[in-house]
Each structure stands twice: as structure tokens, then as C-alpha cells.
């Protein structure tokens, strides 16, 4: 902590009042540390796509409504479009590119292929990142709006998965197969 109580992480002073403010942002993405200078208005999503060229995370609505930008930050699923990159210094971010490779797919990627859980594929990276976060939440015993009781012991029924995945929209409406793919992987767990 500095004497002022303000972190050293702040915008560089503007050259003129109308000037764009920039900041240096250090983040770990898919296990790799990056240090990037960016306009402080940059969303985490834009940082990933435009500056780190990780274009797997998609920009659908850019307002947190569609879930196509879902990534994992310190293990939790969030909408990358609704957060400033500058607020994520030091965070550990995982995108779809960090979950699997064409040679070694993540079990959810395999399940989405097996169950034909997409048509156009635009929402799929967000669906899969969201499902990774969702399975972890269920493992921790978090209830959902669809849960009969608030106690632990989550059984991932179709209704539970639909509710827990409601932050991810699929314009092709591949929902039944998305639910099947996720159930398939959830069932693999002890």
C-alpha cells in the first residue's frame, strides 16, 4: 500500500483533458503472463480479442446479455464484456483457447461435438467456458433458482442445467443438445 492508500495502478496522467488515458495491464491468460498498454476504457473482452488476438471469446451483445464472451477469471465464469481490463491486473484468466487444443480437446469440447451441440458455433466458446464454471459451482453445492431446496447435493437435471446456463443465449437454439452435452460430462464426475 502506498502512503496515499491508493494503489500504484492508476491511469497515466493525460497529456490534455481530451486525451485518451492509457494504463499498463498485467494479466495471466491461459497460463501466460502478458503486459499490455491499453486505453483504460478497454473491456476485458476487447483486450483478449484485439490486443492478445485470442478471438475465441466472442462479442455478441457487448452488454452482458448473451454470454458469448464468457471467460473464467480466477476460476469463476464472468462476462468479459462487462468488466474493464484495467480492473483485472494480477488475475488469472482462462479463455476457450486455454481449455483444450485441436489435438487434445477438453471433455466439454468433445461432448459438444459428440452431441452436435451447435449450428453456427458463435456462442459455443462462451457456452463451454460457462459450462466449466457451472460444473464447478454445482460441485461446490451451490443451489439455483430451479433447485427444490437450498441445501447441497445438486443433481444436474435438465431443468437445473437450463437454469444455470440461462446467461448463455444460442441463436440457433441448440439448447437440447447443449444440455445433453453438459449432462454427459457432468455424469462422468463421481
Amino acid at each position: 500500500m502506498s502512503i496515499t492508500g491508493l494503489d500504484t495502478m492508476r491511469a497515466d496522467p493525460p497529456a490534455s483533458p481530451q486525451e485518451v488515458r492509457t494504463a499498463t495491464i498485467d494479466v495471466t491468460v491461459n497460463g501466460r503472463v502478458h503486459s499490455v498498454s491499453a486505453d483504460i476504457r478497454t473491456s476485458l473482452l476487447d483486450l483478449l480479442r484485439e490486443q492478445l488476438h485470442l478471438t475465441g471469446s466472442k462479442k455478441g451483445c457487448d452488454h452482458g446479455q448473451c454470454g458469448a464472451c464468457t471467460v473464467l477469471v480466477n476460476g469463476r465464469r464472468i462476462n468479459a464484456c462487462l468488466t474493464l481490463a484495467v480492473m483485472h491486473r494480477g488475475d488469472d484468466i482462462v479463455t476457450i483457447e486455454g481449455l483444450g487444443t485441436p489435438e487434445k480437446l477438453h471433455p466439454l469440447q468433445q461432448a459438444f461435438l459428440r452431441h452436435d451441440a451447435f449450428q453456427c458455433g458463435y456462442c459455443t466458446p462462451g457456452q463451454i467456458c460457462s459450462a466449466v464454471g457451472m460444473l464447478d459451482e454445482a460441485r461446490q453445492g451451490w443451489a439455483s433458482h430451479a433447485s427444490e431446496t437450498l441445501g447441497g447435493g445438486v443433481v444436474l437435471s435438465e431443468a437445473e442445467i437450463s437454469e444455470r446456463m440461462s446467461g448463455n443465449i444460442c441463436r440457433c437454439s441448440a439448447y437440447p443438445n447443449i444440455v445433453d452435452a453438459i449432462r454427459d460430462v457432468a455424469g462422468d464426475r463421481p
Partner: protein
Amino acid sequence: MKSFDYARADTPEAAVRQSGNPATKFIAGGTNLLDLMKLEVETPDKLVDISRLDLRDIAPTDAGGLSIGALALNSDLAADDRVRTHYPVLSRALLAGASAQLRNKATTGGNLLQRTRCNYFYDTASPCNKRQPGAGCAALGGFTRNHAILGTSDHCIATHPSDMAVAMRALDATIVTMAADGARRRIAIGDFYRLPGDTPHIETALDPGELITHLELPPPPEGKQIYRKVRDRASYAFALVSVAGIVSMDGGKIASAALAFGGLAHLPWRDKRVEDALIGNAPSTDAFEAAADVLLTDAKGFGANDFKIPLTRRTMIACLRELTSGAAA
């Protein structure tokens, strides 16, 4: 998005020292503020990032209640064992709101301070007294399906969007703050929100630069607790009407009742007269109808939201049936 300055605070004292200018905003989860900044509905000159402050803890109070750090995430609060066990109405309200991704980012303090989802507030081409005092209200005479039926004014008919705040109102939460000069203050949730009147841009009792640091819940209330939300989709939609209800029974009669309503007003609505109409009565359709009459005496629709008046009545009565029945909530 307009350009702004940014600083991250690492103590509450440092955060409030940076504030006080109305053009300075605190940012925590940012899920609502950034959305509005993208649309230039919100145009702060400076953001003070409070997301790393040590205000995430949920801890018992000496009084037997629960202290909730303003930065406790909505998902963590909903999953907290003490909340699930002793304040289930709060868990249920949180889980009925937003999406899992948003609940993983949204904070308790930020949830209380959400802005309305009135479509005219969001549309900068429309006049809005909340966005620009004195400009007029495009919702009056506009499409009002999501708008208020209680406590409206000629200047604003917007609703408060939060589910969590409705449960907090039923639970009699207290909001604990730190002012720009470091002074602490406790505000009962019943005194926290303001009706629109002729100043709909002033939504809460907070002074400029005042920071919410905690919420406090009193000891767990007696009786059964439920949260019921009626909306246009099965998930991920704002309430048309919601009810947070807590009722205890004694000898076949209603001994205590707390009913707070979402989707109806500029604030999470609670009317003591409704609860007084119920207390001491045996549960019956007549008693519930009479209490609904009290709630809705002054209700006023604006056309497209007229349906909310009978919907509120039916939802309230359904909740009261469940709250006073023997079955588990």
C-alpha cells in the same frame, strides 16, 4: 464510452477521499455501471476502483445477525450456509436475479444501487428526468409494461430492478456507510430509498461520495420465508412482480408478517398497513383479499402495466397461502 480517469483504492478511507465530486463514481462489479457508460447514460469523469477493498466477509454480529461486506459477491452471498439456513428469502431472491455470470461479478452494495431498467432511461434520445432533471418523462404516454403502479409521480414511473433489495427490505437490513470525511453512518433500508417525487435523479439517502461498506441483517426472523418472482421468461429477466414474504403463525393465527414487493415501485415496496391487516387473523381468502386491498388502494396503472394490479393481488395471495400452510417452503 467517454474518457475518464481511473484509480484503484486499497482502503475505504482512500476510496472516500477520492470521492465527493458527483462526476466521480465508485466501481466494484461494474456490471450495471459499465453497461450504462457504454451507452453514455452514465458519464463519470473518474472511476475509483473499490473492487479490491477488504469488504467481502460475511460474519455473525454480536446481536445474533449477519454482517455482509459490501463487496460480497451475489453468488457467494446466495451460497453462504448461514444465509441459506437462516435467511432463505435472501438466497432465493439472489438466485432469481440476473445470470450466473453476473452474480459472480455483482456485489451486495452494487446490487442495492442498481439503476432502473426503464427503457426510456436507457435511450438517450428520449427525455428522462432521472437522466437529465427537468427534461420530462418519455415513459408517461410511452410503453409502460415494466413500469411502476405504486408511489409514482408526474416526473417518473420507473421501477427499482433489484430482487436482492426486496428480500433485504423484508428482512429489515441496515446499510452501513462511510462518508467522504470518514464518518460512519447506519441507515435502515426503509429510509435508504427515495420515492421519485420531483427529484427522480436522487434515488437514495447516500450523500455524494458516501461509500456503502456493509449491510447488516438482524437475527433470523421467526416463521417461514419465501421469494416469488413473476416475469416474462423462466429465467434471466427482471420481475414484473415479486414478493419477499416472511410470516410466522401462533395458535392458527398470523403472529408476524413482513411483505416486500419488487417490480411495483421506484423502491422495494413495503407497506406496514398491509402487514397490520394480516396480523392476528387466521389465514383465509377473505383476510388475504382484505390485505391486498390495503396494498393496492392507491395503485395506478399507465395502460400497458394495468395488468400488474391484479397480478400483484394474485401473487401476494398465492404467497400468503404458501406462507401460512403446513407445507415446507
